[in-house]
């Protein structure tokens, strides 16, 4: 026999044949398949599930859905743990481990609940009023307040689970699978539309799963089974249970989170835990239903005080009796259904306390027939019970207050209902305009901003018949507007489920003024009371947006789903204004919380970004080279020999290259093949120097600037044929340069006949540098004469190297004799190993990017992005020689005449030599001319490149300094935290000043 004390003998759609064990706060319980954690706890008589955010008041389960503000649970433990989950949405599985939050040392005895006794010191805006002074203390306050006010705990280890993302397209996306949503999906599906139907619950059917009504002569849940079977037979209908549509963005783009395996005890390892659906829908039908509105009465937050419809759901869907003796507080007929459900399942309803002056009608007759007392024109003025409600006080209403003798009723369950609030969140996110519905006292969808329809409860059409009709027409019209012409059939007919709206009651009167006898909670999750709202209003926070931020109203993880409308009502009443005049706060995604893993999907770790490796990468790995990331490229940084650190390795590599021969993998340089009769015209336009007279087979260095005259790339371009050029770019800028060329060709000069093609990955490039470079290369090629006359500097020859077809360029980034050998990528590794083998007798030394940087700095060659930062002109770099005075217009030219670029005291590129030759300046170090004891000092510029150069025998640096070319010989200072470095301003060139090494 079950030990679930509050499980009814029958009823509900849980599977009583399957018993499931779980633990809550370390204690073992049992439930059934089909339960949520909330229904299973209630079946075991457990109402107390958490402590409130601010006052640490005992809290129970308020709702049966995703709007739950109280029952926030820490699920699981270790790296898989997830905080702040709603017990009402957690599906029970075997071995589930859950714990309560925001309590210490235990849920029953919580030290933090002292805040409740001190609550008169925690009014609205408490943080703002208390922690203001002294300002420097805020960080200290924050440390403690964060600890005191936390909810769940974030996991401390990386999430071991997998998540995934997918795109989907459809004719009609239906959000919500209650009566309206099912009707819409059926209509659209029958018409032949591609339909996606998503619902946040594990079972599709929404309110029909706990309904007493009839559809098409069947019970509601039977109709749901048939409807789902029909949808299941449609090839183009996708059903997504456990899928929360949480965001509605432009052009009918919606994001959905599917719980794929997070509800399973032992999920298949190939499945993701959760999945992000990114849906683009031609048409959207929102059938998101409505949320029952709590009543704001004194001490309305004790465990055992629940929304009426939630109690119906627990009774009818889960076969659970949340209490044995109940009192119902309501302002509407619909809530009477919950009293009947409870009574039919074996509970006792002590009384129905109705706020309306007079009541009559079939529901009233029905409960009276069951012998339930109906107290019209009465209110609950207070509740009692420490960890669970054990009684209420009831008084008669009169003239906006209460009078007469209070009457006490004992009970273990209080149901309340203040009517219904349509869920317009997604409609509002889509930028639809809301309008106020007076009869409902709620905002409903007004003018839609996107191709979308709302249907059923979320429109305020709350009777079952209306939902089915509304859903059917929305689905049929959506299919038609999506261009689908099949027969949508007819709407299903309903029996029962009528809805009669009732006037709102924003604050239930008590025998004392609001705030003086118990707390009238509005926002349960953030502990905001009616008194807080009224106080904020008195203090001048009259705008709803101010109210929200001052009181934290609606700012919890539930985003105020159950509370916002009551706060607006209270505020409007206090200001004697209609609610629509007060307005509402902005609805923002996500509708319910979404895990970070869902957004990330597989895009983390190694899969975050593509990695680009050169053809020679494996050789570098074999040589134990660490890699430097340059954009997506992994480049060999240096090649340490045994016992060497980076400094030693770089010194050795740099020295070896200057004395014998070194090779570097330069494959990552961007390469763009440019062809067409107007190719030279394009080069003339994008580079600052002249290209018209470049002979075939010759190369030229170019600087590329923006229209603002600022340098953005550099590289060598070679003329391969009459109308054929090969441009090289910096490694990081290759795609940007290609885009830049295309931009001009497509948008400004579509008549120019030029094609640009990226060939970066088609070629592997090895640069052979050093005095022995010619001798080494000569051993590997027979068809390319290498002497200076036949193959001069800045030219290109084609032939074969090590038996591989090659283009060899005599260009140099070291200032030494250099050949850059380009071969088809697949031969890159073969070329490298052939060079290493043949070079052994010359002590050939492979060098990485660090040595490459040292070597080019010795010669004062710039690196774009290091010496430049987007505010650097060629003239700033001292490279006036490369800016043509003769040729016509080109990009950037006009900007050199702008007053700011033309002035003489801009930041100039200079060299720096430290007074202490072994001291290396930190790159980025700020430079001052006048040293003071402490900042602020006038900063002139910064160090851009700085290395120890073994070939110069001292440290060298480059820097940009204001008016630097006129400071040659000056001493400047780089003040650091622990010392100040003195350096002399020099020309930015440190080695081979005469340039004699280039020809070997």
């Amino acid at each position, binding site marked *: 026999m079950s030990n679930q004390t509050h499980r009814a003998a029958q009823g509900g759609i849980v599977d009583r044949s399957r018993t499931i064990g779980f633990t809550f706060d370390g204690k073992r319980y049992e439930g059934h398949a089909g339960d949520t954690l909330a229904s299973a706890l209630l079946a075991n008589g457990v109402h107390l599930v958490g402590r409130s955010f601010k006052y640490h008041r005992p809290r129970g389960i308020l709702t049966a859905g995703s709007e739950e503000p109280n029952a926030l649970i820490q699920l699981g433990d270790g790296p898989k743990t997830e905080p702040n989950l709603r017990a009402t949405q957690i599906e029970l599985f075997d071995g589930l481990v859950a714990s309560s939050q925001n309590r210490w040392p235990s849920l029953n005895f919580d030290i933090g609940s002292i805040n409740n006794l001190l609550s008169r010191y925690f009014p609205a805006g408490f943080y703002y009023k208390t922690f203001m002074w002294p300002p420097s203390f805020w960080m200290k306050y924050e440390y403690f307040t964060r600890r005191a006010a936390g909810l769940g705990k974030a996991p401390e280890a990386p999430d071991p689970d997998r998540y995934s993302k997918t795109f989907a397209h459809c004719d009609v996306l239906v959000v919500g699978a209650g009566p309206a949503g099912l009707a819409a999906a059926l209509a659209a599906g029958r018409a032949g539309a591609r339909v996606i139907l998503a619902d946040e619950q594990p079972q599709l059917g929404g309110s029909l799963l706990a309904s007493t009504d009839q559809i098409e002569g069947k019970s509601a849940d039977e109709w749901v089974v048939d409807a789902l079977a029909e949808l299941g037979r449609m090839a183009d209908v996708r059903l997504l249970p456990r899928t929360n549509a949480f965001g509605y963005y432009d052009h*009918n*783009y919606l994001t959905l989170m599917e719980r794929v395996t997070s509800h399973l005890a032992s999920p298949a390892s190939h499945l993701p835990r959760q999945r992000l659906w*990114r849906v683009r829908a031609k048409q959207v039908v929102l059938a998101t239903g409505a949320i029952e509105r709590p009543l704001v009465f004194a001490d309305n937050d004790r465990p055992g005080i629940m929304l009426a419809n939630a109690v119906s759901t627990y009774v009818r869907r889960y076969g659970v009796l949340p209490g044995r003796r109940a009192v119902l507080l309501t302002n509407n007929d619909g809530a009477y259904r919950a009293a009947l459900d409870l009574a039919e399942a074996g509970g006792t309803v002590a009384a129905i306390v109705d706020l309306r002056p007079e009541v009559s009608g079939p529901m009233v007759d029905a409960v009276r027939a069951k012998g339930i007392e109906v107290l019209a024109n009465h209110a609950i003025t207070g509740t009692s019970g420490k960890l669970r409600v054990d009684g209420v006080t009831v008084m008669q209403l009169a003239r906006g207050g209460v009078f007469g003798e209070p009457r006490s009723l004992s009970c273990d369950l209080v149901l309340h209902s203040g009517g219904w609030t349509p869920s317009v969140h997604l409609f509002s996110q889509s930028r639809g305009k809301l309008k106020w519905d007076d009869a409902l006292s709620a905002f409903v969808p007004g003018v839609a901003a996107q191709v979308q329809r709302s249907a059923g409860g979320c429109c305020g059409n709350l009777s079952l018949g209306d939902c089915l009709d509304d859903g059917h027409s929305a689905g049929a019209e959506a299919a038609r507007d999506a261009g689908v012409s099949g027969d949508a059939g007819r709407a299903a007919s309903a029996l029962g489920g009528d809805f009669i709206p009732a006037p709102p009651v924003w604050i239930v009167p008590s025998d004392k003024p609001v705030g003086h006898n118990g707390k009238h909670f509005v926002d349960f999750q953030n502990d905001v009371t009616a008194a807080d709202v009224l106080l904020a209003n008195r203090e001048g926070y009259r705008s709803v947006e101010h109210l929200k931020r001052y009181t934290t109203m609606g700012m919890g993880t539930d985003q105020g789903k159950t509370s916002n409308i009551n706060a607006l009502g209270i505020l409007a009443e206090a200001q004697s204004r209609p609610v629509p005049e007060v307005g509402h706060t902005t609805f923002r995604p996500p509708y319910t919380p979404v895990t970070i893993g869902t957004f990330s999907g597989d895009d983390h770790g190694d899969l975050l970004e593509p990695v680009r490796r050169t053809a020679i990468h494996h050789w570098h790995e074999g040589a134990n080279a660490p890699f430097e990331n340059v954009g997506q490229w992994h480049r060999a940084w240096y090649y340490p020999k045994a016992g060497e650190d980076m400094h030693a390795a770089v010194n050795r590599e740099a020295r070896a290259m200057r004395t014998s021969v070194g090779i570097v993998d330069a494959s990552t340089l961007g390469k763009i093949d440019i062809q067409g009769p107007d190719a030279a015209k394009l080069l003339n336009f994008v580079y600052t120097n002249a290209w018209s007279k470049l002979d075939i087979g010759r190369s030229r260095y170019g600087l590329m600037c923006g229209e603002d005259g600022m340098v953005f790339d550099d590289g060598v371009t070679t003329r391969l044929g009459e109308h054929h050029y090969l441009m090289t770019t910096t490694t990081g800028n290759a795609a940007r340069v290609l*885009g830049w060329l295309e931009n001009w060709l497509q948008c*400004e000069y579509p008549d120019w006949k030029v094609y640009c093609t990226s060939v970066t990955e088609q070629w592997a490039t090895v640069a052979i540098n050093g005095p022995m470079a010619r001798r080494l290369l000569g051993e590997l090629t027979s068809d390319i004469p290498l002497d200076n006359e036949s193959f001069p500097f800045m030219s290109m020859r084609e032939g074969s190297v090590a038996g591989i077809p090659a283009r060899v360029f005599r260009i140099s980034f070291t200032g030494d004799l250099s050949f850059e050998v380009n071969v088809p990528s697949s031969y890159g590794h073969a070329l490298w190993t052939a060079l290493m083998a043949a070079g052994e007798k010359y002590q050939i030394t492979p060098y990485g990017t660090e040595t490459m940087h040292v070597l080019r700095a010795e010669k004062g060659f710039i690196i774009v992005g290091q010496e430049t930062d987007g505010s650097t002109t060629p003239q700033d770099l001292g490279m006036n020689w490369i800016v043509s005075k003769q040729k016509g*217009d080109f990009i950037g030219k006009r900007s050199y005449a702008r*007053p700011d670029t033309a002035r003489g005291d801009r930041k100039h590129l200079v060299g720096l030599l430290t007074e202490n030759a072994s001291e290396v300046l930190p790159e980025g170090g700020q430079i001052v001319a006048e040293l003071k004891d402490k900042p602020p000092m006038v900063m002139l510029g910064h160090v851009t490149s700085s290395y120890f150069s073994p070939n110069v025998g001292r440290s060298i640096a480059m820097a940009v300094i204001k008016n630097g070319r006129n400071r040659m010989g000056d001493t400047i200072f780089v003040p650091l935290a622990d010392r100040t470095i003195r350096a002399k301003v020099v020309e930015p060139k440190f080695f081979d000043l005469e340039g004699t090494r280039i020809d070997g």
Partner: protein
Amino acid sequence: MLLIDCPYCGPRAELEFSCGGEAHIARPLNTEAISDAEWADYLFMRKNPKGTQYERWNHARGCRRWFNVARDTVTHKIYKVYKMGEPKP
């Protein structure tokens, strides 16, 4: 996320595209002759209207072609997609 109807590839998600800002800004032909103010206007000044904006888009992760879009900056409604060189609608 916008749905942009590339004139060469058809409708694709915004993340395949990059926006090139205001369209129909012709490069001055006589750059030597124009004033600094006129040059600055070409270089820096953009309309940034509330309402219909004509802007350039590049199908950067697709066909890599540039084209023009007339888009409402308030509602994101795209009125027209048209090729480079075609007149402003």
